[in-house]
């Protein structure tokens, strides 16, 4: 038994994460790349599952089926590449956290019961946190941003826990299979998953946190948490109708922000959100082709999104910024980074012969087979949007457009090697999609390279590209502008904290003038609230964190109440 447990990929990676601190740095770097590959071997050698009863509950510590192995495989491949890319940063914290993060993500995909899933779910939140500790040349190190990120990750875990307890109390047990919205706890679990999947209005932690991390930090962050959420949605909520409109909104809403955003890594964070939308639609449609499509798209997306974040990370590493207003003309200095970026851009745009084409089309085809005309049209429109923000804007404003006059060195060799291998992966999947399809959980038989599919996709991309040419050359294309664009996070970063202060101020006045008992009572309540949550309070770093903390305490109390 013990030897089997040691073969669990997560144990192997946690061990490596600890060893990083004991080894000399040169050895640690090698271990950081070798350990995920060792874990990949362990994943495929792992026996089917391990169940036992403990503490009155039925646990299934792992269940290595096709779906779990597919996600585990891409997590470990992308983990190894992201950690190779991290070599120039030469930072033990990144190597160690990256390994623990990868281990937690794989542990979660293997979890056969909801309690084990919850454990790893929280461990991914913990392990990812050190990756955000980075003194960004543009943003500095923001403790508030760190707390906001962590608060939302923990909130997601609490919602999951609340749902799990409801299920256990309803006698449904801990097994992690189809959950559905209508079963006890289903809504809470979906909301918990939805935070990490960046559902509309729950999405801003992605754009807030990811662009603040180091070059390698962002690459690793972009890989695990959100795609783990897609994995659990496939497992728990396949065919849940509400996911279709949720996914459609996700494909469209972030596009507008991606067009306006100046920081190219934040553009990619919005683009990530939009790609998750395609997968969520696939889960919502729920047919075998749609579910295989969502899984395949997650696999391809992890690779090309890593590649895009790697290329922009290399730009950050060399120039100290990824703001479009500060960049341009970098192809002269960083020609290979530019080429790899273009491979990533063409892949995400679903250009035939590259990876996005062979996976996104499965979801679109599934929408057609189910007669969902409007969903299909929305995804088509969103595809044109992808071509703009990730296909054209990112490479164009970084490497071409107006020459910024910056002359820097090409990216370090290990970064280039990581980009080269990732780009090769995108091309390989595009050329030989059968390699990926063979791993899909439901074994869909799909053929992306039919004459009409290639022709129609080329029409879409070429004419969208011509639209860019027309808009840009006629001066209609929006300029890059240094600005913050209001998104939903304005509510918890500005409006709620400000309105609390305003109400408090108003009550103080009312209390003073009228001497009313009620005014004083409300005032003292708010003063208590401030003591807990505000800048100077015990729990808060900012009013925003304070009120979030209050929400968590409330939720925690609810969960506690159920348990008792």
């Amino acid at each position: 038994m013990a030897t089997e447990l040691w073969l669990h990929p997560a144990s192997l990676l946690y061990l490596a994460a600890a060893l990083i601190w004991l080894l000399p740095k040169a050895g640690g770097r090698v271990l950081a790349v070798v350990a995920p590959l060792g874990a990949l071997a362990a994943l495929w050698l792992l026996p089917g599952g391990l169940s036992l009863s403990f503490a009155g509950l039925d646990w299934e510590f792992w269940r290595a089926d096709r779906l779990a192995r597919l996600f585990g495989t891409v997590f470990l491949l992308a983990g190894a590449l992201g950690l190779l890319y991290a070599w120039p940063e030469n930072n033990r914290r990144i190597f160690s956290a990256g390994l623990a993060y990868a281990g937690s993500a794989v542990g979660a995909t293997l979890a056969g019961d909801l309690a084990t899933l919850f454990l790893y779910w929280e461990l991914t939140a913990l392990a990812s946190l050190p990756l955000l500790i980075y003194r960004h040349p543009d943003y500095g190190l923001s403790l508030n941003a760190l707390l906001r990120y962590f608060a939302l990750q923990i909130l997601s875990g609490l919602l999951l826990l609340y749902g799990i307890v409801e299920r256990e109390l309803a006698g449904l047990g801990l097994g992690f299979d189809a959950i559905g919205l209508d079963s006890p706890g289903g809504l809470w679990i979906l909301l918990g998953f939805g935070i990490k999947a960046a559902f509309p209005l729950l999405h801003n932690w992605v754009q807030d946190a990811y662009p603040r991390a180091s070059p390698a930090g962002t690459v690793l962050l972009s890989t695990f948490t959100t795609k783990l959420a897609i994995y659990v949605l496939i497992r728990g909520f396949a065919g849940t109708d509400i996911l279709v409109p949720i996914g459609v909104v996700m494909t469209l809403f972030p596009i507008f922000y991606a067009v306006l955003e100046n920081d190219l890594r934040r553009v990619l964070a919005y683009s990530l959100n939009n790609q998750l939308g395609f997968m969520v639609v696939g889960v919502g449609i729920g047919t075998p082709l749609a579910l295989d499509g969502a899984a395949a798209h997650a696999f391809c997306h992890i690779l090309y999104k890593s590649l895009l974040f790697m290329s922009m990370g290399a730009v950050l590493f060399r120039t100290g910024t990824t703001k479009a207003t500060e960049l341009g003309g970098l192809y002269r200095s960083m020609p290979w980074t530019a080429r790899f970026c273009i491979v990533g851009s063409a892949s995400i745009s679903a250009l035939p012969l590259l990876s996005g084409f062979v996976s996104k089309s499965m979801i679109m085809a599934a929408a057609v087979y189910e007669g969902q005309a409007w969903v299909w049209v929305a995804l088509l429109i969103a595809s044109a949007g992808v071509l703009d923000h990730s296909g054209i804007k990112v490479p164009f404003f970084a490497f071409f457009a107006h020459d910024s006059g910056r002359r820097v060195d090409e990216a370090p060799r290990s970064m280039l090697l990581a980009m080269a291998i990732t780009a090769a992966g995108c091309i390989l999947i595009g050329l030989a999609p059968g390699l990926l399809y063979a791993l899909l959980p439901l074994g869909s038989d799909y053929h992306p390279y039919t004459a009409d599919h290639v022709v129609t996709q080329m029409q879409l991309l070429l004419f969208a590209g011509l639209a860019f040419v027309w808009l840009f050359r006629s001066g209609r294309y929006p300029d890059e502008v240094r600005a913050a664009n209001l998104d939903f996070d304005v509510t918890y970063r500005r409006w709620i904290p400000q309105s609390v202060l305003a109400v408090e101020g108003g009550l103080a006045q009312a209390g003073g003038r009228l001497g009313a008992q009620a005014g004083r009572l409300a005032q003292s309540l708010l003063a208590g609230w401030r003591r807990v949550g505000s800048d100077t309070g015990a729990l808060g770093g900012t009013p925003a964190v304070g009120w979030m903390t209050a929400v968590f305490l409330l939720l925690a109390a609810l969960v506690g109440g159920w348990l008792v």
Partner: protein
Amino acid sequence: MSSEAPKTAGQEDAAQERGVRLAIRILLALGLLSVLAEFVIHRHTEFGFSALPGFYALVGFAAYCAIVLGAKALRPLLKRPEDYYGD
């Protein structure tokens, strides 16, 4: 010889502009080719409305313009100073 003299910024810009124009012509030619190809191959139509020849070309061009110009129209509403949140 004049060709060996260092190029002025103006000459370099002109050369670049010629390159860009050529690239645009190629893009245009490929676009037209992709529409014409539709009449040669057998195309499965997904829905009644998508049977229109050049449907994808139309959607690609129109959706791209709508997204970019729509975002541009939203900018005055959403734009705040870069340090709006202060962190």
